[in-house]
């Protein structure tokens, strides 16, 4: 009896192993025909963008599998424009979506196992080191230059040279421009004589002032600040906006994540990190009660429904705030560059020092701003093993061409933010989207202030960035906010785990990759 019972238990445990199966899709043939030129699918009122152009081939019968994260943003414009692209070229677009936290693993597993079920990826350019190094991505250097309709040089240099390029080769077509910035309720601030925050101390003071006040007019208390802090989502990407002005003051090439002399983490035990954690903890208590469980979608909804005085986010809140189907604060939202600091970290001593001409050469009014180019913008890459690479490139180009992108970046639900020079210069689509001129200039001005800042902070882009940020940083910050770790333990945990991973992968290799990413020309 005993033996039988043990066998049964053993068999049950063993049979509980989960198995997955996989399959590769069939690929149809490309048929060469004549060039097709069409008018843009959506008309812009003030200044019409150039017509859409696609290569001189037909892709009838071809299906292009494109993977990205579960929308609605990012997937929405791909799905919405797929029928137009099919009508023009004959190629069918199949958009596959997975949760953001699974995207990296899904795509890398597909490529590394040779399954190759996806032809194109719309993903985070931070991951280029892991994708380009093993040769999983198609080199697009020649294609982007040859494609006049794409207007490669019309893309802002930062996105061309950083987001799209790795080791001198172009691997992605930018579809999105990403900078974090602060949004505030302009109507409320104007009414109360408040100015937008210049430093994080200002931000906290304003958030404290409005926390618990009824700013939406529904008779219930509202919140001073709404910032996504959810674990396992994109919340961890808000923290570097707070920490960066303490770490980086001498220009983009200085870097804000590691000491470039020895690859020691700046997010480790030092006074700058302690101050940033203190601000982060304070902000966690100046928002909705479930702020620790709010993803960016939740905080955006809270802000545009009028319940938050301030928020830190990418460029999405601007267009979302003028969407009459969702927003109650149309043209009442102001935007400003990431707040800065009047103190910066002395890397050699680990102490904070006051800003002066030497320590903060790029300071404005004594405040060191370090606008964080978080994520780098959703980008379109092509699987090197795709048998429909030409058609996939045509779709990526189509999505990024000025005719389409000028409209898409003005629609909040796309998740696409401005990244072409024309997006900043041509106000027509913005006015057409519902923004008034003042708000459009304010919104685009805040992004341009980040884009043109000599102290812009580049996001981390080294081998296994995903582990450094989405596993170690995300977990430690969540534990800190939940009270599982105090500030000292949090700093130590991040530094120890980052150092362990750096040593595993090779300190010299990682340092070279980090310095290489900082040395890229961004202007």
């Amino acid at each position: 009896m005993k033996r039988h019972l043990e066998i049964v238990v053993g068999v049950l445990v063993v049979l509980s192993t989960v198995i997955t199966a996989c399959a590769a899709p069939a690929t149809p043939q490309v048929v060469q025909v004549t060039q097709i030129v069409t008018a843009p699918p959506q008309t812009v009122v003030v200044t019409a963008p150039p017509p859409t152009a696609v290569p001189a081939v037909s892709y009838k019968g071809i299906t292009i599998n494109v993977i990205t994260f579960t929308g609605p943003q990012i997937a929405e414009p791909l799905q919405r424009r797929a029928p137009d692209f099919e009508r023009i070229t004959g190629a069918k677009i199949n958009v596959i979506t997975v949760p953001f936290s699974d995207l990296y693993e899904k795509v890398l597993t597909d490529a590394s196992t040779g399954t190759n079920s996806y032809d194109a990826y719309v993903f985070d350019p931070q991951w280029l080191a892991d994708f380009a190094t093993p040769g999983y991505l198609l080199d697009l250097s020649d294609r982007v230059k040859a494609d006049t309709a794409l207007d490669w040089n019309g893309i802002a240099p930062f996105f061309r040279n950083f987001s799209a390029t790795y080791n001198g080769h172009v691997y992605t077509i930018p579809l999105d421009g990403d900078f974090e910035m602060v949004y505030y309720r302009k109507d409320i601030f104007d009414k109360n004589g408040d100015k937008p925050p210049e430093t994080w101390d200002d931000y906290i003071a304003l958030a404290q002032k409005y926390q618990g006040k009824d700013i939406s007019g529904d008779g219930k208390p509202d919140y001073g600040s709404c910032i996504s802090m959810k674990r396992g989502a994109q919340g961890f990407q808000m923290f570097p906006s707070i920490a960066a002005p303490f770490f980086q003051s001498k220009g983009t090439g200085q870097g804000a994540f590691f000491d470039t002399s020895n690859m020691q983490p700046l997010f480790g035990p030092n006074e700058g990190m302690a101050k940033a954690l203190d601000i982060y903890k304070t902000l966690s208590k100046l928002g909705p009660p479930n702020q620790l469980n709010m993803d960016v979608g939740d905080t955006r909804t809270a802000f545009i429904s009028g319940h938050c005085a301030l928020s830190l986010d990418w460029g999405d809140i601007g267009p979302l705030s003028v969407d009459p189907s969702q927003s109650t604060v149309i043209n009442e939202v102001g935007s400003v560059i990431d707040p800065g600091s009047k103190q910066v970290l002395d890397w050699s001593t680990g102490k904070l020092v006051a800003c002066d001409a030497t320590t903060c050469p790029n300071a404005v009014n004594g405040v060191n701003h370090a606008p964080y180019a978080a994520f780098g913008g959703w980008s379109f890459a092509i699987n090197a093993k795709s048998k429909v690479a030409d058609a996939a490139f045509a779709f990526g180009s189509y999505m990024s061409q000025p005719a389409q992108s000028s409209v898409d970046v003005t629609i909040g639900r796309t998740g696409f933010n401005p990244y072409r020079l024309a997006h900043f210069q041509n106000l027509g689509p913005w006015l057409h989207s519902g923004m008034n001129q003042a708000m459009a200039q304010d919104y685009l001005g805040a992004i341009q202030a980040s884009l043109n800042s000599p102290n812009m902070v580049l996001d981390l882009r080294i081998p296994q960035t995903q582990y450094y940020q989405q596993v170690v940083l995300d977990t430690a910050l969540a534990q800190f906010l939940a009270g599982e770790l105090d500030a000292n333990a949090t700093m130590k945990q991040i530094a120890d785990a980052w150092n362990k991973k750096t040593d595993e992968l090779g300190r010299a290799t990682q340092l070279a990759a980090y310095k290489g990413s900082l040395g890229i020309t961004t202007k």
Partner: protein
Amino acid sequence: MSVGDQTQGSAQVGPNLEVPASGPGLWERLVDRLDRAAGSAFILPAVLVILCLSIFPLVISLYISLVRLQFVSSGIQLTFVGLDNYAKLLVGIDHVHFLGQAAPPSAISWIVVGLVVGTAVVLFARYLRGGRLSPGGLVGRIIVTVGLCTLAWLAVTTLAPGGRPGTLMVTLVYVFVDITFQYILGLGLAMLCVQHLPGQRFFRVVFLLPMMITPVGVAYLFRMLADTSIGPLYPIWSALGLSNTSWVENAWGARAAVMIGDIWEWTPFIFIVLLAALESQSIEPLEAAVVDGANRWQIFWEITLPDILPVSTTVVLIRMIEAFKIIDLPNVLTNGGPGTATESLTLHAYTIWRALDIGGSAAVAYILLLTSTFCCLAFANLVRRRFVEG
């Protein structure tokens, strides 16, 4: 006369018949061999399926837990790192996440640990004096004794005030609390449904519904219910003055939300199995007990419970195996938060795996496998010896 008694060269095929002593022909031998191999041949596909689907992945994942993956110019490089991935979890940078933060032992901690250790030692000593020693049994009991004492120490130090349970202890809490409540509730509902009350057919279906919902759906359901500011229960939370609090931001509040969801979802499984056991119970002993004047409690305790104990053991065992793998609820409901308060072992492995640290992820998964096997075997042995065999 038997065949074995025949002399070489002849064989009896009937009571009085003998055939030439030439032995079986080639065809007969072939048929005989095929006949004997038929059993193996028929089960071979099943064996191959099990090998491919279970054993092979187990072996490969054991190997993967000993390597580190890196992306290099030629593709993937797997570097053998020995037990480094396990060391990270048990003594390295991830040990607090995995094992938890121990609080300084209090008097109560010492008492609880002392009771567990004392009980384990007494049971072990009783086994040694029992005279039924075997090498396998001895090793097994030593492992169980040491394992139970270690888990007891881990539990009292990490669950005590000032301590913090790691993913291992959180998983064990989920398993034992959830299954305890599921068994009590499932048995209670099953007892009600055999009472021939009005509407019992209707309620049988209703009680089963939670199990029919996908776990992710249950997680989203409880996520909405747990939202005190905009969820469907907002009027209730507001009336109680709790609309500006979030109970999933408190470590034990969040764990409670996960456990309530799991209990709600899986109680029906235990309910339906125990209902079948109760309905198949023989009526004669119950009638005899009534005639003898036994009250309801005595009938339940002395007759019904022992009757359904074998089924109960099996259903609890199945639930234990499943419960160790819990991931949907903590992943969707809280993403393992606040902090790592609701993170189960499977979610821990999944988090690491999403960054393609497949070695670290496989190490967590292997420890989970060992832990669940240990607990299930210990439970099965305990129940069998204490209750089934008397």
